[in-house]
């Protein structure tokens, strides 16, 4: 079984990483986190990119479920969609705690009588 060699699967396996694996997109997420929902115009300010360029990056983030755009009058405001990241992290914390408990039981078992 070599599922990691299957390109379709590989692609589907890391949408969050793919979306965040770019300096511009990471900065966009950080700015939305620090300053809350913002327009494209504001997000473009201070970057060397055009509005179209920023929009393209926001779409990649949106496809991964990390941000969402909402129409407000004549322009879109973009905001963080934190659910996905939170779910991913809290889920891992949960599994991680279970491993901690299991490894403690393993430790008790193997150290018993061999100390």
């Amino acid at each position, binding site marked *: 079984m070599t599922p990691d060699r299957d390109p379709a699967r590989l692609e589907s396996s890391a949408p969050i990483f793919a979306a965040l694996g770019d300096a511009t997109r990471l900065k966009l997420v950080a700015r939305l986190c620090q300053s809350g929902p913002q327009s494209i115009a504001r997000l473009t300010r201070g970057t060397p990119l055009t509005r179209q360029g920023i929009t393209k990056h926001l779409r990649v983030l949106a496809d991964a479920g990390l941000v969402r755009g909402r129409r407000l009058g004549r322009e879109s405001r973009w905001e963080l969609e934190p659910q996905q*990241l939170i779910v991913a992290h809290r889920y891992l914390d949960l599994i991680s705690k279970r491993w901690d408990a299991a490894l403690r039981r393993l430790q008790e078992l193997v150290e018993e009588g061999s100390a």
Partner: protein
Amino acid sequence: MGTTTTDRITKEILLKAPRSRVWRALTDSKEFGTWFQSVFTEPFRPGARLQGRITYPGYEHLKFDLVIEKMEPERLFSFRWHPNAVDPSLDYSKEPTTLVEFTLEEIEGGTLLKLVESGFDAIPLARRADALKANEGGWAEQMVAIEAYLRRNP
């Protein structure tokens, strides 16, 4: 005692026991079951697909599948499974699995055991959310979690 991303869990623990003892506790399915709180009908061997049943009180009706990948004596033991596949009404067989790898290293004072479970990013987000809902009542710490994440990953 470990690090996390969204895709993998890494743990390291120093066990004050010889490598041969740790290897037995990992690869003898009966011994594995004692600390993993489950029973298996068959011994572990590379390529084996077997079913475990949870022995933890209150969860005895739950079963899970395990596919043993590698058994390199006293060095590497790995298997694949569906993490947290505990809802008997769901068919997990078509969903991606995670890979659990134990590596053993002899060091002064005992055995250094490393555990890596990887592949979580492939697990449908809905499954992960279900696992959380089953385990935590509320979602009060959501914002704390995202802020902490972004601080660590600026």
